[in-house]
């Protein structure tokens, strides 16, 4: 009896320790990032850092403005979602509502495979195929906003497909039957009832994919061109926040190095906001479900 109790409490303690450890890890990373990055703002104002596009960290009078990279990150991510959301949603709907069990299975395993490919492989594929295709189609060098966006679109699509499929599939079947029983067609049911009913889940999936796209480094580095300038054309070169950190990290010292950590802080905050948005969206979708069960 006593031994069993001892075992129980030991197991409990261990689980608690593991949970605690993961919280501590997040906390330490946050503290570390801010301690390493914040000192920059003694020399450069936050405003200048965020809203100047002069990035000349090694000049005689150095410039630490990351606006071009913020714009670059959002441009590439936005364009990627512009491609990935309609396609991903379409595949998700197809899998949840239209395809047979067998073809659903095949699509699902290939989507999962897509999600498991290392980003460096995506990068290689991007260099060889996407950059040359985009050079032919859109002109420029091929290392560009559009190439980076295409790569990111392919990389975020599995998330969007998966979440869209699951949120549509998990809707109560009474919704679908209710619509069909009113004489709506299957297509009307999908577009007017099922997709709107699953929208919170779908939005959460899109934001999740967006988080992945903003944080992605290697693949975009390999096809984006990485010029530290304001991106003005879709076929022109681009540098994102992540690319900025990785590019200069190998040689930067002093304030330059600090400014890279400060870039990391900006990236961190963006992702934090996105995650909070996902949680809010999910919470909303859960309350909607509970409301649907009848108060």
């Amino acid at each position, binding site marked *: 009896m006593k031994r069993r109790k001892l075992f129980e409490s030991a197991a409990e303690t261990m689980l608690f320790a593991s949970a605690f450890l993961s919280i501590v890890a997040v906390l330490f990373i946050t503290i570390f990032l801010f301690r390493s990055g914040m000192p920059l703002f003694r020399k450069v104002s936050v405003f200048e850092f965020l809203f100047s596009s002069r990035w000349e960290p090694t000049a005689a009078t150095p410039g630490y403005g990351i606006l071009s990279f913020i714009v670059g990150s959002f441009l590439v991510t936005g364009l990627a979602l512009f491609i990935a959301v309609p396609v991903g949603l379409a595949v998700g709907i197809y899998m949840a509502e239209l395809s047979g069990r067998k073809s659903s299975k095949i699509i699902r395993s290939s989507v999962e495979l897509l999600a498991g490919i290392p980003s460096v492989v995506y990068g290689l594929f991007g260099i060889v195929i996407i950059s040359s295709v985009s050079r032919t189609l859109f002109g420029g060098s091929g290392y560009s906003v559009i190439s980076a966006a295409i790569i990111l679109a392919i990389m975020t699509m599995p998330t969007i497909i998966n979440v869209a499929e699951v949120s549509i599939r998990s809707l109560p079947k009474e919704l679908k039957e209710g619509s069909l029983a*009113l*004489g709506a067609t299957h297509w009307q049911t999908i577009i007017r009832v099922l997709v709107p009913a699953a929208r919170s889940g779908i939005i959460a999936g899109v934001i999740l994919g967006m988080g992945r796209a903003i944080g992605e480094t290697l693949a975009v580095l390999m096809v984006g061109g990485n010029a530290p300038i304001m991106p003005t054309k879709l076929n022109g070169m681009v540098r994102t926040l992540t690319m900025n950190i990785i590019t200069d990290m190998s040689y930067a010292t002093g304030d330059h190095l600090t400014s890279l950590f400060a870039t990391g802080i900006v990236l961190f905050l963006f992702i934090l906001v996105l995650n909070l948005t996902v949680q809010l969206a999910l919470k909303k979708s859960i309350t*909607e479900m509970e409301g649907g069960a*009848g108060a």
Partner: protein
Amino acid sequence: MQQSPPKFSISDLNLWYGTSQALKDITVDIEERSVTALIGPSGCGKSTFLRTLNRLNDLISSVRVEGSVLYEGADIYAPDTDVIDLRKRVGMVFQKPNPFPMSLYDNIAYGPRVHGIRDKATLDDIVERSLVQAALFDEVKDRLQTSALGLSGGQQQRLCIARVLAVEPDVVLMDEPTSALDPISTAKIENLLEELKKQYTIVIVTHNMQQAGRVSDKTAYFFLGELVEYAGTKELFFNPRDKRTENYISGRFG
């Protein structure tokens, strides 16, 4: 009593889910402007039978149907049947209230909209008329633009009835419409049936024999996929001809 031809005329209806047979040789006529109750123990096929009348069983790919189901003289399982049109004329209310996650107004306007009505004034009229018919208008007239999910269960079910009435059906199928509701909401819906049958043909599945006794004109007793007995409700309850019916209604099993 029976002057007009039956609304539904079903003969030798057999239905299989894969290899297991759920309905066996069902032959029955359903009269118009009356309430027909389907009773029987769980799994006896009464809901399956109800769903053959608007072809909602089509959603299950393993279902196979034989025999004929005539609606106003035309076989609804004939290859040239327009299922969309059938479901427009044969509406259905489900066991669990299933309002769409949108406003009350949009819920009711949904049917008319998918059938091509765009005019705002026409839709306004339909929404009001349907809510009045479903005895819900006075309770909700000030909150038509709020979410339907905020209604109580009983109100949601009446909303679902209004949603069916909005497409101006001819028949209303009800699959245990009050089994998820409290007694007061149940009474409201039962009163509603009394009104609705003046205009519509109603077929209702119920587990509750008192309910069948209160609301229906004719009752069909299903057991193990067979239609055991079909008669006027009073006759079936007070004078059952089949031993199995008698056992069921006297509560000896089921």
